[in-house]
């Protein structure tokens, strides 16, 4: 599967969270690496899988259906979103 990056899901994430997340700072729950979401690795199929570029830990999974959006963030130690 072709690897993309966080830029490719900017619209999906902004649609969910109401603001741009590509500049939010994510901390990997596996290796502790800090990166902006735009720099994270993304794989897209029926859903979205976001991985740490350093240790490949799954940081986020997103599945959208007409009924609901399902978000799994258990691999993401923290996500810092600037105010404003």
């Amino acid at each position, binding site marked *: 599967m*072709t*690897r*993309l*990056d*966080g*830029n*490719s899901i*900017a*619209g999906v994430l*902004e*649609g969910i969270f*109401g*603001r*741009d997340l*590509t*500049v939010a700072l994510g901390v990997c729950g596996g290796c502790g690496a800090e990166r*902006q*979401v*735009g*720099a994270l690795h993304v794989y897209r199929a029926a859903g979205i899988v976001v991985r740490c570029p350093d240790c490949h830990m799954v940081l986020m999974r997103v599945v959208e259906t007409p009924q609901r959006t399902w978000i799994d963030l258990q691999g993401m130690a923290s996500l810092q979103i600037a105010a404003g």
Partner: protein
Amino acid sequence: MAGTAVLGRLTWLVAEVAETVTETPHVRTLVLDVPGWAGHRAGQHVDVRLTAEDGYQAERSYSVASAPEDPPALTVERLEDGEVSPYLVDDVVPGDRFELRGPIGGYFVWDADAREDPLLLVAGGSGVVPLMAMLRHRQRTGSNVPARLVYSARTLDDVIYRNELDTLAARGDALEVVYTFTREPPPGWTGYARRVDMDLLREAAVPPQENPRVFVCGPTSFVEAVADNLVVLGHRPGRVRTERFGGS
């Protein structure tokens, strides 16, 4: 009041095609009129949504090619097995409408400002589109920040914005454009005719000592090879921003 905070929520807008520009045999620019458009930053993209008569929807992302000072324009490359791009490249005529949401993304973005950090842009194929928005923004704001575009294309005919790039580079305001042709260089070509490898970057890219801001855009394999090589050459990883288009 809870729930009423206005975050400028991303909504689907209706874009009307104002003008089309054929860039190459495979690439076309659509200049758009988008009521409600909030204005964009150089490097941002939009999501385009097409809806078939039976309700089937297809969504794709396209970079905004125009400067923030100008109306939004998308430059689209036709992918032969694509669901959306053949329509946008071959079929759309002025007056046609489709849905889009945006502008989107604040990561792969360059704002002309007082800081004098040089700009290094590295494009693979249609990855030049968001980088062109940055160069147009640079020109429209009168910025003299030193800028270099390293642009890899298959052949001369595949170069998008060729005339405009050559015109911009001829202005003598510290913009350099370096082409490399990976399939067939034009007759008599004495420049680069290979992939953007380590040696090419060492020779043609702004050196890390000048601490450039770096933007790399193109197919995934291109972007990752270039970004890795730039870091090996001494560019700080945090200065190298990438946007992957996916398959080549």
